[in-house]
């Protein structure tokens, strides 16, 4: 057996070396072209997705600019200030439209932060449990199930919110309306969980065994090791996980469109999450379909899209920063 293998190896080697070392011109050219073409193809395929991002930025900016830059400089500033600081949102009016998006921006922040208040503690603690405490077999069962959460279509979450959570809030909690900021926050927190759990769990697992054992060696208990060594060591990864979860929540459309009630105002008193709010994404989804093209209403919706894009872009940068720091740290640099 070994002999025949050896024999074949020899033969292969012989074949390989029996080929002329010098390539003919055509072979040389073909090889050269194949490499360059392959290179170019792969590059352009990759570049396509970069291009898509750039194109989205370009078109969103192109369509939102006419809303701001119209008339004199003072008017432009006035429109921008109205957009960012006023709460009257009434763009469909023919006589005196209002374009104050403040209540919509605040609505987005409400549901996003509300979602984080629930999802961050639950997500991080679940990640701790899965990475350090759960026995291997349990973890093998739990992780895929949690990941299923990410695969459920958002409209299904929306139906759940409207048909089950909303009546429950009205009948059991006694809220006047069931589609409100709290409802949307709860559903969004469930949707952000898989992201937070899996990224945070990766971060915690990446802290090496030797770090944990050194801690135990110094006499620390399991809880002390977890709280004072492992979590601090992986904190940039956990922050990145939270930001990714936040991006999931802020960009979600269908669920908030169905669950938040879409009343464009800031809840008063400010802490009353049982009132309905409207988010940036829901406003675009609800109004863009029928709005006549190239009107102020059309452009202001793109202005909202631009704002949303800048938001997520900023968050993405922050999470990249923490990810990079985490990678550096876990390599011991």
């Amino acid at each position: 057996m070994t002999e025949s293998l050896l024999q074949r190896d020899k033969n292969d080697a012989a074949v390989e070396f029996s080929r002329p070392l010098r390539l003919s011109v055509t072979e040389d050219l073909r090889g050269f072209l194949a490499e360059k073409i392959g290179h170019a193809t792969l590059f352009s395929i990759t570049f396509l997705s970069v291009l898509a991002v750039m194109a989205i930025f370009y078109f969103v900016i192109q369509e939102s600019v006419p809303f701001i830059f119209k008339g004199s400089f003072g008017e432009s500033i006035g429109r921008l200030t109205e957009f960012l600081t006023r709460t009257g949102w009434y763009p469909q009016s023919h006589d005196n439209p209002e374009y104050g998006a403040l209540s919509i921006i605040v609505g987005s922040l409400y549901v996003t932060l509300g979602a984080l208040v629930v999802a961050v503690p639950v997500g991080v603690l679940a990640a701790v449990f899965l990475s350090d405490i759960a026995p291997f077999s349990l973890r093998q069962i739990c992780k895929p199930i949690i990941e299923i959460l990410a695969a459920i279509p958002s409209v299904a979450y929306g139906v759940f919110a409207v048909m089950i959570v909303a009546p429950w809030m009205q009948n059991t909690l006694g809220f006047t309306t069931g589609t409100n900021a709290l409802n949307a926050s709860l559903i969004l927190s469930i949707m952000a969980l898989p992201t937070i759990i899996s990224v945070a769990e990766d971060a915690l697992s990446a802290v090496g065994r030797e770090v944990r054992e050194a801690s135990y060696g110094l006499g620390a208990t399991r809880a002390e090791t977890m709280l004072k060594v492992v979590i601090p060591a992986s904190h940039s990864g956990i922050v990145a996980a939270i930001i990714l979860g936040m991006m999931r929540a802020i960009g979600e459309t269908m669920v908030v469109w169905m669950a938040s009630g879409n009343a464009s105002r800031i809840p008063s008193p400010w802490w009353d999450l049982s009132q309905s709010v409207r988010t940036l994404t829901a406003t675009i989804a609800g109004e863009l379909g029928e709005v006549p093209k190239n009107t102020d209403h059309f452009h202001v919706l793109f202005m909202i899209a631009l704002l949303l894009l800048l938001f997520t872009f900023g968050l993405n940068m922050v999470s990249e920063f923490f990810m990079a720091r985490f990678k550096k740290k876990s390599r011991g640099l």
Partner: protein
Amino acid sequence: MMKITVRILMMFVITLLAGNAMAAEKLQIDGSTTVGPIGDAFAEAFKDKVSITVSKTGSGDGAAALVEGRCDIAMMSRFMKDKEYKAAVNKDIYPVAHAIAMDGVCPIVHPSNPVKGLTSDQIRAIYKGEITNWKDLGGADRPIVMISRDTSSGTYETFHKLVMKKEKMTDSVEYVNSNPQAHARVKSTVGAIGYVGLGFLDRNVKALTIDGIKPSQSTISKGTFPVSRPLFLFTNGYPKLGSVVHAFCTFHLTEEGQEIIEDKGFVPVTDY
């Protein structure tokens, strides 16, 4: 295997050719998004006879398209305005209206609500945020939850024009994006008031009378119900008898056409 594939391919090609030959006549329909679903369903019924393109760009654009000769039939959720008529006549186009259906929008409340009817002024006051509790309207002491359709829908447009008199709704009004969803929200919310097309009324919600008039097929098709409006198709002159356009514009008189109209939540213009 090969044979079957070839046969299927051949059949495909033949149907394609035949379809092309049959659908030589082309019909352009343009206009209101409210009438759009009816236009779509009618076009579906005519698809063997003629190739129809239905675009839904709004009543104003439908009128403009008819005037400019960009379409054969304009769908409109309102009558043509003076200006549009003048522009048409100046271009030697004589718009003729065909009322094909009525659109009635009914206010609905939770079945447990004792309020039976409201005046349109009261409904306007509710949506303007001036009346905020059912006790002011003879109901229980319970805050009113106002539910509206999204501002881009035709149902909203009708309600906004006929009940709100184009005045602004207060900012605490909630918006939902379909008739079934408005129905579902009112069904499950005790203090809610909403509005839906007549076709969406059932036992789970209570339809209110407006100014004492009950929303029904009969009151809407007669036009006595205050929140009802006719939906139109406009053609250039009365269509030639026997032409496809004529058949299309009179399709609402057939049983199939009436079924479609009811199916889309509108009311046929007949009364029997």
